[in-house]
């Protein structure tokens, strides 16, 4: 098992948002999480990226326990940074750094990370390597001609593609998407979904929170339907979308105009 999430609980001041979430996935799979707003999808994703720390539960990756609430709930900034390296995150609102060019958005974090440990005489070689890797990534997401553009000069779809490339630049084990097309005009969602499909074909391991049901059905190996902080139903897309056991998912899919 590549990723094994066990019994995650997360409570905020007045609400229990995650009430015992467990699931697992294999390397190279795409897992989508669907469900109404408030069901806990985003919180789950944020727990995996350690933007929130789960109150209880464990996360195993590649057979190693990378998070155990008993042990890590109050862990240090340094420990969190190491854990975060396993996961990449693409936000709904892109969150690009406006003061840096597209390319610099990609290279900043890898550079800070690698230069921390590198001896002085190797620094320029490392910078050059990171720069080239960044250019390659931007070419992969179809932005060869936008390397030096600032975020404000890019369309929403282009910004989100830069954000995807930025997350890939740190070579995460798993790439997470939090409603990557929800902030986009309908005519721009296609270009972002295409990039995600390409990643799927290259066997990037992905967890995608989305409201694009048609896309979820096509791209995912495994679908998780969340409701009120628990996993109400999960399975391959054919089952979850066309032959679900839970009545909740039918009414949800109707609301999402899936049928």
């Amino acid at each position: 098992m590549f990723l094994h999430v066990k019994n995650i609980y997360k409570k905020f001041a007045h609400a229990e948002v995650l009430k015992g979430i467990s699931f697992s996935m294999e390397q190279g799979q795409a897992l989508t999480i669907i469900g109404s707003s408030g069901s806990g999808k985003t919180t789950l994703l944020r727990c995996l990226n350690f933007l929130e720390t789960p109150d209880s539960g464990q996360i195993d990756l590649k057979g190693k326990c990378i998070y155990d609430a008993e042990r890590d709930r109050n862990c240090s900034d340094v420990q969190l940074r190491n854990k975060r390296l396993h996961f990449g995150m693409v936000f709904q609102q892109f969150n690009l750094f406006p003061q840096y060019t597209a390319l610099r958005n990609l290279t900043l974090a890898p550079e800070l990370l690698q230069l921390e440990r590198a001896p002085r005489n190797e620094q320029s070689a490392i910078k050059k390597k990171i720069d080239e890797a960044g250019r390659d990534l931007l070419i992969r997401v179809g932005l060869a001609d936008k390397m030096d553009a600032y975020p404000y000069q890019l369309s929403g779809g282009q910004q989100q593609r830069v954000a995807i490339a930025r997350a890939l630049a740190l070579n995460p084990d798993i790439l997470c998407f939090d409603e990557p097309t929800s902030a986009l005009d309908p005519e721009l969602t296609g270009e972002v979904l295409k990039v995600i499909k390409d990643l799927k074909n290259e066997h990037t391991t992905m967890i995608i929170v989305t409201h694009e049901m048609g896309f979820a059905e096509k791209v995912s190996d495994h679908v998780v339907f969340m409701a009120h902080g628990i996993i109400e139903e999960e399975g391959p897309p054919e089952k979850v979308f066309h032959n679900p056991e839970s009545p909740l998912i039918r009414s949800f899919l109707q609301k999402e105009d899936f049928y």
Partner: protein
Amino acid sequence: MKHMFKEITLQLLQGFGENLTLFGLTLIMSMPLGLLICFGSMSRFQPLRWLARTYVWIIRGSPLLLQLFIVFYVPGLVFGAPMKNRMMAALVAFVINYSAYFSEIYRGGIESISVGQYEAGHVLSMKRSQVFMRIVLPQVIKRIMPPISNEIITLSKDTSLARVIAVAEVIMVAERFTAKGLVWPLFYTGVFFLLFSGFLTLLFGFIEKKLNYYRG
């Protein structure tokens, strides 16, 4: 007449030198101090936050003129160690006063940066200090330039308040002439302030233009 004009201009210029000294030193010291107070007022440690916000309340809530008197007289009255250097007293009062204002401008700037910017930095495994220095601070600087320039231009004129503790700044020099029946030098001092604030306006316009290479 021509000779007198030149003589008076030179004397006023000497007084304005005091204004500029006070202006420059106040900026150099109050801008970093303001950042410390700003961190204090945003601290998660409640007593520190309380202390910083009380400081800001007291300083912003009372006249700079009064603060000048207090800094100048209190050491002598209470501790028996009078302030000998008037310029030093003025500087202390100005630094205390302006750091409080700057801290609030900084706080406004820092709080205007969206949480998403911090989170984007964190998921990219950046250190807290890197997130602040590389991501947040550059954006804050751009956003606070207009209120900061406003504050700095206000400071350039506030320096004349140092007159009340007899720092020989430009208006005080001009008043010596007024006492002798010559009024125009007093009005003439306005030209010095206008020229200097004109220069500052151009300077800040230039900086803002430089920072305009991106939006957001």
